């Protein structure tokens, strides 16, 4: 287990976690009362948010299958959260046996859970680390054991970069990962935006603020998110509403148009 810096939160309050709240929104029971309370609060300010979560999860499946189709056989999923339904290694290994996956999260419970779930799977491992510390991730035992940096790697940063504040310069951080990748590698990003909806979203982000979660949402514009793909070539259809990225069926798109546009999704190929 790599020892890394992760932020201890306030001491004597109940602290919900992003990973477990997301699991709850998807319909899972891998969560605690505080997480469910936060989930309910957010959902009440933005009805249909469950669908946005579901649509993002569906995107995960599509993008992993897409990358496997492009010949990618190794994945680095940063901000992987609680393992739920259709995890990267399950989707990838079903599509092409032998795919290797390194999960990264900074939530200790999510990491512990991933660890338990991956016991016995030699081709997948989890690293407990913060995205802001690329060295501890890229240099981790798991990454060194499972990933060949001379071959293309599929890097997933789904619903993750918006937790990284501007002060931490997410664009520069993404670039650090990019520099470690071989040409032909892919980067998939989904990122919350306020471009298409503002009122409810403010209420929802306020709810997260009030929950005292150590994680706070940083909504970004289409242009700002696109900048993160510096050094990557966006594949068709570009940076679009999450549901609109190569949907494979009606279930990939939320019935509420707003919920498809709450999160931008894009996939870039390193040139």
């Amino acid at each position, binding site marked *: 287990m790599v020892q890394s810096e992760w932020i201890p939160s306030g001491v004597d309050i109940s602290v919900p976690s992003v990973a477990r709240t997301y699991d709850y929104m998807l319909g899972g029971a*891998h969560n605690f009362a505080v997480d469910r309370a936060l989930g309910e609060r957010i959902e009440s300010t933005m009805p249909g948010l469950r669908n946005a979560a579901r649509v993002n999860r569906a995107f995960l499946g599509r993008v992993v299958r897409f990358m496997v189709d492009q010949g990618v056989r190794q994945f680095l999923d940063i901000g992987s959260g609680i393992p739920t339904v259709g995890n990267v290694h399950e989707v990838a290994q079903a599509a092409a046996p032998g795919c290797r996956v390194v999960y990264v999260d900074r939530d200790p419970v999510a*990491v*512990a859970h991933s660890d338990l779930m991956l016991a016995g799977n030699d081709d997948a491992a989890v690293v407990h680390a913060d995205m802001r510390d690329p060295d501890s991730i890229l240099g981790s035992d798991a990454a060194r054991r499972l990933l060949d940096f001379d071959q293309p790697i599929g890097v997933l940063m789904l619903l993750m970069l918006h937790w990284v504040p501007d002060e931490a310069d997410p664009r520069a951080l993404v670039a650090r990962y990019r520099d470690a990748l071989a040409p032909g590698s892919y980067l998939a990003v989904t990122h919350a935006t306020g471009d298409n909806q503002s009122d409810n979203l403010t209420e929802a982000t306020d709810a997260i603020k009030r929950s005292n979660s150590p994680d706070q949402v940083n909504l970004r514009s289409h242009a700002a998110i696109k900048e993160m793909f510096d050094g990557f070539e966006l594949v068709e259809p570009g940076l679009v509403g999450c549901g609109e990225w190569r949907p494979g069926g009606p279930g990939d798109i939320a019935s509420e148009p707003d919920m498809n546009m709450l999160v931008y999704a894009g996939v870039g190929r390193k040139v």
Partner: protein
Amino acid sequence: MSIPSQRQGATSPPERGRELLARKWSYLLSGAVVVALDRNELDREMRDRLDDLCAAVHAEASPGSPSPRSAERIGEQLVALGYVTEDGLRVTLDVLGKGLLGLPEFQPVERHAQSVVAVLGALSSGFLAASRRAVFEQQESMQLSLLKAVRDAQWNLKESEARFEEVVTSSASGILVVDLTGRIVRANAAIGDILGYTTEELTGLGLLDLVHPASVRGLGEAMLALLDDPHEDAQGGSRADRQERVRQPQRLLRKDGDVARISLTMSLLRGADDQPVHFVAVIEDGTELMLLQSELNRQALHDVSTGLPNRQYFTTHLESALRRADPVRGISVFHLDVDAFGMVCNSLGRPTGERLLVHVSQRLKAVLAREKAMIARFDGDEFAILVENAAGTPDVATTVAEINRELAEPVYFDDRGLAVSVSVGVVRRPPSDWAPAEVMRAAEQALRRAKAGGRGQWALFHDGQDADERRADALAVAMPGAWEHGEIGVRYRPVVELAGRALVAVEAVLHWDRGDDSLDHAGCTAPAERTGLILPLGEWHLATACGQVRWWGQSAGLTASLRVGLTRNQSRDGDLVRRVRRVLDDTGLPASRLTVGMPVAVLAEPEAVDNLTVLAELGVGTSLDDFGLGPDDLAVAAELPIGSVRVARRLVERQARGEAEHLAGLVPLARRAAARVLVDGLETREQADWWRAAGVVAGTGPFFGDPLPAGAFHDPIEWYD
């Protein structure tokens, strides 16, 4: 057990029905649940599950071999797909409840409804059990993760208290950290709540003092077993042999002396040197409670006797339905009140009344089986229905008529046949920004107006519609009553040969006498088209006219045929042929003496083409009305078995204004396609002469006389003959 063969070629009807239903199921599920399968895989999976289900329904129906297990298994398999939750179950029951009974193999519905309900019930109970297990498993695995996270943090009380706190306080489960002597050094608020102590009070207590005397020994031994390191006493032992944790159901003593039944997982924390430092215990009592809570929620949202959602549930559902409604079609909300329910209860007793309401709820479900609808029971004898309108959703009047027709069929309770009717208030397409309470108030207001009109009536709520629509609605709503009261009647006008002025046919049209004013045929059919009343009204129109013409034939020797114009909806009515045959059988009028006219535009639709073709085969005369306005009209006339065409009134008006150039050419072209060409709307002799010269054989219009009631029409018969 006999199961009809189900896999014989992709096009056989049961296959096709199942294929469509499975795809709909898969499609709706994919929008409500999180599963690992992609769309095609899910389609295949649901197709297999549907085959299993259909087999279970067939098995259920065959006596002596009920197999609820197989349907329960399907519920379990659903849960195993991923995160399926209550949304997945709701979607499943919605789609299958309606869809199974729509499959050809389960016709007639009455014979299979019971089996379908039984199978869906078994599916639900299998789903519930599996879902409950899944929740247990997930929660349990979270407890383990929590425990592991604490261990992985290489917990050190002094150095990383904050880190420990993050893990511990985020848990709804109790956590105790116990030193190697069994003394509690750390407790979180959750365990304090479970045991009724403050965390300060717990700190310093001995763990075993909190355990029920009967279990002290078991727990003590388990703790010793954890400490027992195979490294030290067995040469061949490895780390894997070391016991990592114990999990026991336990009884703890609360401060007030009560016993708390919990489940306790204990593990050993080791320091950096791998030496034991502390025990950590995770104590949970939440899961059972949570499940109980959800069952209580379910009960709180449903009416016990009918099993329907109650007002509270309905209102919540209405709120979300308003939000996601199709902006064009919208939703419809019906508020229903069973007429004279008090009388039923007074005379037959309250229990019979309740049984009657259960019956009503089942009939409502049957009527709305094809719609995306929620049916709820409100207080007493009131029901509510929310329909999310789709392309094929019948209009409000048809739905209400259907409900009352279903309920008019008597149902027997203790040998007493009861037939009921309902009064209905309807809000059609409420604006999406309305609050549910506003919609319900509007529906109730409309219901009150409906009840003022007597039993079995319905009324629309009107606010926010423009004046025209309101007027049209008012007409549409008043129409059934007017029809019943005899205000709507059939009138007759002559179809006259232009050359010899002979009576070639009698055209029957509708007429609505509204006291101060009256509406002609078009004025009657337009509102009736809007509501669907046209179908019963049209059949009555046809029957009345056929009877009249047959009588004129017998009594006055009338040989001319009867001509009846159909509307668009009548022309494409799936029952049209049956209706016409029934009328001809009942009245004894030969098919050859009836000519039906269809608006030529409707023949772009296959149903109308089928109707026209079959009627022609039966020997009924066929005519295309409103002819000459569309570019394809000539082609339609040429391709179909058409006896005559009637040029649209608008073209006749155009000719009268002198815009006649290309009209003269229309008639010869039409004559090439159909034998006879007629015109409508003739007002003057000049017009009649012009069209006769152009090649038209006969015409209708004010020039030959306005429509007259049957009694007054006798003269023209004699006059023309």
